[in-house]
């Protein structure tokens, strides 16, 4: 039985087409459709319910030590109010999940994890804790709304005091009021645009959602579903767990090496990645130049040899073409070269490009 987010009734009232996703019932799109929703975020603003995401908090004298051991990025130079992205790896260097970390205090860190991995993450984290640290799972008490797009700041200013709005990307403010509700306001997102993610108590979710939607009306803000969330992240070249990453792929093999700090004293997966050395595969972007749309798991060829497979792919509405991400052997597929992607039995040409297809 799927769970409902606190905004479920609101989505239904707005005409959202509800689908099961990661154990939750969420709108894949509203009557406006994926393309209109996608374009709203690129040009104006869109509002997403992301309450399905999980929030796990580690606190206590050994909280930092545990975060350092669990995650591949470095957190010892982080300050209160900062947000940092990181993979979390298993002993073999494969990715358990990718997440973002909020430093609440020097001895308190909030990790926001993928809904689909929440149970796996909670079990993984709690079974690897050492020392004096407390594990708390707030996932079913916290709602999250993402306001994304160039108009986001102008909209947020109408329901949140200007001085409480985080000024820089990947920073946040806490204990601030959004529409009168106590919230964390984070300048982060998953769309490739400027924007905010607002965390509040689940009881306040409807009030925060409605206030933002109302405030943003004249700015062109519309509600957006999971469909646009996926096309937006793909167009911006952002990886999605289960596609560009999984328990078998190391962060280095999927273009996330800059989030793996090998000079850090130790972390889970470090030894395995040391032994593997420099990866021979990479994540690349493919611009489909032939007719067709490559989806995930399409074989990629150079001549007769398969060099890898696609991990995600769709038609990107803002760029107006088909794009895919792929994990391929490095050598035969330099930037600018032509490869072939097999789409339902037919090979179509594609150009190897940088994975960030769209940059604001």
């Amino acid at each position, binding site marked *: 039985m799927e769970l409902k987010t606190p905004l479920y009734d609101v989505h239904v009232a707005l005409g959202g087409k509800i689908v099961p996703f990661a154990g939750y019932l969420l709108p894949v799109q509203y009557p406006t459709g*994926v393309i209109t929703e996608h374009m709203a975020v690129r040009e104006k603003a869109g509002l997403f319910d992301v309450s399905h995401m999980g929030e796990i908090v580690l606190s206590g004298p050994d909280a930092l030590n545990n975060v350092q051991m669990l995650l591949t990025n470095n957190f010892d130079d982080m300050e209160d109010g900062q947000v940092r992205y990181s993979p979390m790896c298993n002993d073999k260097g494969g990715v358990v999940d990718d997440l973002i970390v909020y430093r609440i205090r020097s001895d308190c860190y909030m990790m926001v994890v993928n809904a689909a991995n929440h149970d796996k993450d909670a079990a993984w984290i709690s079974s690897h804790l050492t020392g004096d640290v407390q594990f708390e799972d707030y996932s079913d008490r916290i709602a999250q709304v993402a306001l994304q797009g160039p108009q986001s700041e102008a909209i947020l200013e109408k329901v949140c005091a200007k001085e409480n709005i985080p000024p820089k990307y990947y920073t946040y403010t806490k204990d601030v009021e959004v529409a009168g509700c106590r919230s964390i306001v984070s300048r982060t997102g998953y769309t490739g645009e400027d924007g905010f993610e607002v965390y509040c108590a689940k009881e306040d979710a409807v009030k925060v959602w409605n206030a933002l939607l109302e405030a943003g009306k004249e700015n062109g803000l519309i509600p957006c579903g999971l469909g646009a969330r*996926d096309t937006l992240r793909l167009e911006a070249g952002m990886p999605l767990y289960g596609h560009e990453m999984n328990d078998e792929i190391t962060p280095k093999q999927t273009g996330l090496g800059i989030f793996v700090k090998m000079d850090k004293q130790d972390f889970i997966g470090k030894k395995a990645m040391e032994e593997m050395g420099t990866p021979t595969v990479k994540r690349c972007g493919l611009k489909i130049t032939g007719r067709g749309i490559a989806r995930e798991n399409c074989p990629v060829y150079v001549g007769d040899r398969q060099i890898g497979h696609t991990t995600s792919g769709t038609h990107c509405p803002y760029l107006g073409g088909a794009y895919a991400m792929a994990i391929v052997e490095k050598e035969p597929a330099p930037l600018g070269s032509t490869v072939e992607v097999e789409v339902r039995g037919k090979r179509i040409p594609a150009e190897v490009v940088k994975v960030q297809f769209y940059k604001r």
Partner: protein
Amino acid sequence: MSNPTNLLYAKSHEWVQDMGDGTYRIGLTDYAQKELGDLVFVNLPQEGDEVEVGAAFGDVESVKAVSDVYSPVSGVVCAINEELLDHPEMINQDAYGAWMIQVNEVSDKEELLSAESYEAFLSEEA
């Protein structure tokens, strides 16, 4: 949008128009385009290709997924709506204007529904 009464309908959500000259036009129903969402790609057969009852003759892709389009008749493709190749959104805008293929030499037809029966079928499905 209501389903035109001069067309016949397949349970797999294609419509068929008898052109009166032994040829039939085939397209996707309005229900189908709504379910599929914004279409961004259409793949059609070529003139002269044979189509077969119940077999896929082409596909349409939305941003999210690809779906086969099945032929409600057996015959030979005598025309395709080339405009759709560059403008797949025409199916979203006018499902009953945006025919996909025209078929002649029809040798077989599946049991097709009237507009009324198709609507009854849709309400059972829902």
